[in-house]
């Protein structure tokens, strides 16, 4: 299979802030690739470069063989984009939004109309089709925005944090819709800060941090990179935590992770179920009461932790230096 998205050495600086620092990436046709990283890792900047919204300071990129820098107009004919902020007109109805987008993709009046109705049906928005978007819920706006990216049945789709800020039900619903897209051979590059999202949707994951790719592979490959399994023990009493650390320390093949509030300790191990039985015996003989126990494959959070030395989830909360963004973003 050939690479339908290709980027080499992308660099983008905003004054002092380096948003992209020599990013390379390639996406094979018909696959879903997730750009995974914390806030400020450069995910949105990467998508903006590939969708011709901004020009990189250095590097080059092609989408479906077309050079993003030399022929941006041609690239726009081949892509659909759904951004982090629902890019729909809130005074227009859902139908009018999609119809307008269809016209601007030059589908022709008739095709734009039928396509709008078709997508509204598919995204469960038919009942709300003729209501102004300002009456929609957040989840409905996102679905409409996603539908907007699909209007022209573009071969390459970019979804920038499609589910950020959505509740769990809306998120699951959106995942289901996204999965069905790629059954039809569409190539999809999506960015996410949710490890579960990458796990659920992506064939390949590109972990990026500080504007650079730091790991690349299937979800399973990334997990193998970190290796082994994890034993997660929750003790009944907080006072037993040091004892649990001590016991697990004897079997762990790497560093332990502890969380005092949830009274859990996580140990990387290699022996699987047999090892788990041994560990439980050790807890028994040391008279440390265990309230919950889990043996699992590493999660992408473990992967991120191992690669960057910081938890992706915890870094989401740290504030990033504000990028000189578009005007008025803050007002939304």
């Amino acid at each position, binding site marked *: 299979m050939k690479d339908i998205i290709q980027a080499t050495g992308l660099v983008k600086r905003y004054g002092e802030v380096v948003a992209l620092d020599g990013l390379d990436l390639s996406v094979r046709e018909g696959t879903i690739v997730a750009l995974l990283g914390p806030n400020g890792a450069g995910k949105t900047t990467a998508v903006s470069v590939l969708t011709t*919204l901004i020009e990189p300071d250095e590097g080059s990129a092609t989408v479906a063989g077309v050079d993003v820098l030399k022929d941006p107009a041609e690239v*726009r004919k081949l892509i659909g984009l759904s*951004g982090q902020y629902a*890019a*729909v*007109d809130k005074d227009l109805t859902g139908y009018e939004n999609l119809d307008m*987008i269809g016209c601007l993709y030059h589908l022709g009046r008739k095709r734009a109309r039928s396509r709008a109705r078709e997508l509204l049906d598919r995204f469960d928005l038919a009942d709300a089709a003729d209501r102004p978007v300002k009456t929609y819920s957040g989840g409905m706006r996102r679905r409409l925005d996603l539908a907007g990216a699909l209007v022209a049945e573009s071969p390459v789709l970019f979804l920038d944090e499609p589910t950020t800020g959505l509740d769990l039900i809306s998120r699951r619903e959106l995942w289901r819709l996204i999965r069905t897209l790629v059954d039809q051979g569409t190539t999809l590059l999506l960015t996410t800060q949710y490890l579960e999202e990458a796990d659920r949707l992506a064939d390949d994951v590109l972990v990026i941090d500080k504007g650079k790719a730091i790991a690349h592979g299937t979800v399973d490959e990334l997990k193998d990179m970190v290796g082994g399994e994890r034993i997660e023990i929750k003790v009944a009493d907080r006072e037993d935590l040091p004892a649990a650390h001590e016991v697990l320390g004897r079997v762990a093949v790497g560093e332990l992770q502890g969380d005092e509030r949830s009274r859990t300790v996580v140990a990387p191990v290699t022996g699987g179920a047999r090892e788990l039985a041994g560990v439980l015996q050790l807890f028994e003989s040391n008279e440390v009461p265990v309230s919950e126990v889990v043996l699992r494959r590493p999660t992408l959070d473990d992967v991120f932790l191992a690669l960057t030395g910081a938890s992706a989830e915890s870094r989401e909360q740290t504030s990033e230096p504000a990028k000189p963004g578009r005007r008025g973003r803050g007002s939304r």
Partner: protein
Amino acid sequence: MNFLTALGDGLVIARRNLIKLKRVPDVLVFVLLSPIMFVLLFAYVFGSAIDIPGGSYREFLMGGIFGQTVIFGATFTGAGLAEDMQKGIIDRFRSLPMSRAAVVLGRTASDVIYNVITLTVMAITGLIVGWRIRGSLLDALAAFLLLLLFAYSVSWVMALLGLSVPSPEVLNNASFIVIFPLTFIANTFVPAESLPTVLRVFAEWNPISSLVQAVRELFGNIPPGAPEPASWPLQNPVIYTVLCACLIIAIFAPLAVRRYVRVAKKS
């Protein structure tokens, strides 16, 4: 092909703007009320105070009010664009294979419709307070077309301004700085001949004066016995106004489109 695409995409955007005008009635209320207010205010406050021998000052005023109002209306173009640029929909537009000129082209086009509405309301109000079209119907039609053409050209100036300010609020202030002197140092409310020399020369060559002069002539609202204008623009007001409008469009349309592309890119 490029030109046709721009035109087609511009129409799509214009349609969107008109839907928004319909949906957000407070804008429409302003579009309808301000011309009524202008006509009543000027007709009764000034119109009753000043006497013109042999003519009606109220009739003389109408041409000026027509001119001033459509030019004030052009701020809509700038405000609309400044507002659009803050909205997420612009991100969508930028990723679509549409003409780069479409957003600005569509905005100036939909503002022609605003102006048609404004002129209609204003003309009806004028007729109620005693203004009359004394020339032929064809001339009257030409007057309205001339007003629309000139307003369209000013729309492009305001488009550039709207794309250069950080927010719609700044635009209102910035545009008044341009519009007020332009509409007042003219023959809109007083004959240009009565102004002191420097201002008189400015007023005589001010295209707003020629627009107003042309409209007065075409509506037959020049009082009998009024002195023949001394300057070329006011002697040939229709030609001069059309020339100025074309020149303004030729200069500001490319500047506004280029500005749009630049502002849209900066993110």
